[in-house]
């Protein structure tokens, strides 16, 4: 059982990773492989009138150039991930002359060498008929869709309502009413999108880092007229996903078709500028948040209204109020979400997609309310802690937010904080601010099939649907299987990210661990039972391998299926067809979230007004911690993401010509080592046995939620400035006298 905490073991794949021996998608170079490069559209929207590939074809070493004129009948759309399909865009480029966004591919070139392919791609010339564009949230020509009135499935995308929020807010003694904006951002995993496509006897084999091998498989089958059995996806390691690699990307079928045409393996590594324009991104958004309290400090009403960027061709649905509506004991809540169609590729999920943004709005307002009431911001949150879900009135499966706040406050030394803004200064004039904010993230669960094989040599192989993208799932799987079977974690091998055996469901939304680990645990139980049935006397105290040997069995395999509470049995059909099948936060009997509290110190230098974050303390309630070492790293990484989101990251758009202007990893500024100071991590580590037997919730996303408002609140504490537009930069903390 899950009673004992798990030991602090090393990351099981670290040995390969530090030697450069872990194999990522584009590390593959099969014999005879050719290289591909893309030419992209230089307009924001319109139509290709003519395309000239003769100069490209003339480059020595070029074998093939394909445009929409070649592919119209060869590739079908795979459908949009959020509309019953498999792809990050429902619109597949290069099967029609229409251009829907700047940077959309218009040709793929295949050559003997990469330099030749790059040189040739740059020589593809097209002339376009240009149409007007709208790429900003407030631009003329956008189209606004009220989500609750749209075709999107209900009740999933209904407004979230409890009580009468408008009336309660109007009557509230203390009111906060604020508007926030957050920019478009790109996930920017360091691994570029890279694919190696090979055909073997009519079967397509794709090596590419992904969070969703099963969707790639089924999507490519649909696109190329194959059966799913004719497609194999190999992605044992993903060099960072963060939502970007959650579905079939538009480039992969292009590489697949090119490989079929030249009858050779083809590698396509997509340059980062093209990834900025053709993979997903976090949409720009605008929020009005209203919060009302009575004089005693009881929160009585909250209203959260959002506008979020979408694309012209696919509606990216949003769930901002799912975070704010369930967070505190507020009886009157109303959320209303609108989607604004713009001329871009479809936006999508980026780590804590709605939750980071929603927490920025709500947790900033809570801080403002604390100051309006003259109450300590930690105390105000504790006073409004929820004991049941305020929307559904169901209980929480577990909730230790209060303990996150109190333990975090103690670790940080919060009691030494002086409440008044601008009251803490270093001798050199540096303004010091201490801020706090909380975060939550749904604890979701996907169905899974787990196969466990044990050999008489003592090795255990666990095959289950999940992808390793750095979160440490291999280590968590090893730990849980090893603990159950009583063997060393090094003896457990995880077969994940490769299609063919168990379905490789999308790993996202922080459900990976709560999906794969309980399934692996149940498989281990089944294995123990199967071993017992071997009928060996004196089985007690003997290693599984000894039992197998004694029974003359070289190996033994078991398989289990596991679904979330409330999932119908048909969910396994959905799972098998590569469609997202996760459930949560609402389950039949309860509502489940992970929680976190972040405490942040900012320092604003007197001369430069540079904002630094020397110190963060974060305490998490993610249920049972299955892999303490990798979990700690994940919290630290999430905090780094929050610092980036609060102070640095914005994808700048060009309102005249479309596209993103800072489409590389130097101009799109992410945190580097010198931006990060101390990040101290605490875990509540209390299992949530209602949710699953191991007691795990989720971790990878909640860790980012609340960092940005904690920083904004700390900046308020340092300067007295309430800043509501992200990212917060030097120019926002300048005083008149500084100019």
């Amino acid at each position, binding site marked *: 059982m899950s009673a004992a905490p798990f030991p602090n073991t*090393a*990351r099981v794949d*670290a*040995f390969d*990773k*530090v*030697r*450069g*021996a*872990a*194999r*990522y998608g*584009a*590390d593959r*170079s099969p014999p005879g492989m050719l290289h591909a490069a893309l030419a992209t559209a230089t307009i924001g929207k319109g139509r290709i009138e003519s395309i000239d590939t003769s100069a490209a074809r003339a*480059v*020595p*070493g070029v074998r093939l150039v394909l445009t929409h004129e070649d592919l119209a009948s060869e590739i079908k759309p795979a459908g949009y991930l959020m509309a019953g399909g498999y792809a990050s865009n429902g619109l597949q480029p290069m099967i029609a002359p229409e251009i829907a966004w700047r940077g959309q591919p218009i040709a793929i070139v295949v050559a003997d*060498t*990469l330099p030749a392919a790059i040189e040739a791609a740059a020589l593809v010339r097209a002339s376009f008929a240009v149409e007007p564009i709208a790429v900003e949230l407030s631009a003329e020509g956008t189209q606004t869709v009220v989500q609750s009135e749209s075709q999107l499935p209900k009740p999933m995308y209904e407004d979230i309502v409890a009580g009468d929020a408008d009336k309660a807010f109007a009557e509230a003694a203390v009111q906060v009413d604020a508007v926030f904006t957050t920019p478009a951002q790109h996930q*920017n*995993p*360091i*691994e*570029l999108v*890279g694919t190696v496509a090979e055909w073997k006897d009519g079967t397509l084999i794709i090596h590419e880092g992904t969070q969703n091998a099963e969707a790639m498989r089924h999507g490519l089958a649909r696109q190329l007229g194959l059966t799913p059995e004719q497609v194999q996806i190999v992605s044992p*390691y*993903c*060099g960072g996903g*963060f939502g970007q690699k959650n579905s079939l990307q538009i480039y992969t079928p292009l590489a697949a078709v090119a490989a079929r045409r030249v009858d050779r393996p083809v590698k396509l590594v997509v*340059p*980062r500028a093209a990834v900025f324009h053709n993979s997903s991104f976090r949409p720009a958004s605008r929020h009005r948040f209203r919060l009302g309290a009575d004089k005693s400090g009881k929160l009585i009403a909250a209203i959260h209204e959002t506008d979020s960027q979408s694309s012209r061709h696919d509606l990216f649905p949003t769930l901002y109020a799912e975070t704010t509506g369930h967070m505190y004991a507020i009886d009157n809540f109303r959320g209303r979400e609108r989607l604004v169609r713009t001329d871009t590729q479809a936006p999508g999920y980026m780590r804590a997609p709605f939750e980071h943004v929603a927490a920025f709005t709500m947790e900033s307002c809570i801080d403002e309310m604390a100051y309006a009431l003259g109450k300590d911001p930690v105390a105000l949150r504790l006073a409004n802690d929820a004991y049941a879900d305020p929307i559904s009135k169901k209980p929480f499966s577990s909730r230790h937010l209060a303990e996150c706040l109190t333990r975090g406050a103690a670790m940080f030394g919060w009691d030494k904080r002086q409440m008044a803004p601008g009251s803490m200064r270093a001798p050199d004039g540096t303004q010091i601010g201490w801020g706090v904010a909380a975060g939550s993230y749904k604890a979701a669960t996907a169905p899974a099939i787990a196969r466990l094989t044990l050999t008489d040599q003592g090795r255990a192989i666990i095959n289950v649907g999940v992808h390793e993208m*750095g979160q*440490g799932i291999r280590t968590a799987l090893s730990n849980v299987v090893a603990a159950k079977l009583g063997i060393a974690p090094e003896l457990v091998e995880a077969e994940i990210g490769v299609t063919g055996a168990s379905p490789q469901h999308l790993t996202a939304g922080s459900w990976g661990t709560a999906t794969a680990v309980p399934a692996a645990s149940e498989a281990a139980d089944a294995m123990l039972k199967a071993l017992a049935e071997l009928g060996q006397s004196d089985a007690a105290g003997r290693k599984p391998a000894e039992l197998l040997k004694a029974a003359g069995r070289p190996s033994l395999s078991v398989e289990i299926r596991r679904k979330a509470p409330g999932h119908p049995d048909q969910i396994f059909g959905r799972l098998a067809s590569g469609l997202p099948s996760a459930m949560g936060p609402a389950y039949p009997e309860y509502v489940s979230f992970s929680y976190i509290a972040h405490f942040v110190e900012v320092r604003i230098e007197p001369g430069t007004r*540079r904002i630094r974050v020397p110190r963060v303390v974060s305490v998490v309630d993610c249920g049972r911690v299955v892999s303490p*070492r*990798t979990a*700690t*790293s*994940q919290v*630290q*990484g999430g*905090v*780094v*993401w929050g610092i980036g989101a609060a102070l*640095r990251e914005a994808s700048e758009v060009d309102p005249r010509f479309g596209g993103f202007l800072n489409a*590389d*990893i*130097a101009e799109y*500024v*992410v945190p*580097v*080592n*010198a*931006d*990060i100071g*101390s*990040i101290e991590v605490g875990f509540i580590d209390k299992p949530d046995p209602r949710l699953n037997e191991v007691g795990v919730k989720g971790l990878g996303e909640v860790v980012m939620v609340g960092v940005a408002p904690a920083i904004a609140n700390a900046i308020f504490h340092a300067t007295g400035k309430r800043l509501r537009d992200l990212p917060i*930069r*030097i120019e926002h903390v300048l005083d008149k006298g500084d100019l």
Partner: protein
Amino acid sequence: MEDQQPRPPAHRFGGELTRREVVAAAGAVPLAAMLPTAAAAQSHLAGRTGHNEATVTVRTVINGTPRHLELDPRASLLDVLREQLALTGAKKGCDHGQCGACTVHIDGRRVVSCLTPAVQTDGAEVTTIEGIAPDDQLHPMQQAFIDHDALQCGYCTPGQIMAAIACVQEGHATSREQIREYMSGNICRCGAYVGIVAAIEDAAPKMRRA
């Protein structure tokens, strides 16, 4: 990402520089100016007129093994390592010298191999992540990265380790602040910076003893 300070580039180093080192550092200087021999310069020019068969012969030592390479003058060292020599430890994260995932050592100094024309390694020694320790052993920096979990997805890790070893050898690992500054040419999007700093602090004295 310091707003006020330039990133310490992967190629910043003190002391006297040879011409090759300057070239290694700048990466983008005109190719003809750096080619070691007149013959090579000619085949380079031939390459530019469209005969891609034109290659440049380069003698280099890679991970201790002398190599005789026929190279496309357009090819970066990163692409040659990965695509021609099956040394895939060095990763491509940007191809623009912005992320550090491709960091290798040339004559003991860290360079971003994506901005280093492969032909420029003529007469030089190249060390990649595959060459810093004998097969069955780990370099103290590799062990420290494991011990401090200084990685997550692992994609930036070979570049981080190559930069970290150089950082220690340059004498830039004497304090946390200094490590942070001199490791800021290597982006880790997973955000493993706390572990990376701890690993370098741990490995530095061990490297000095070794």
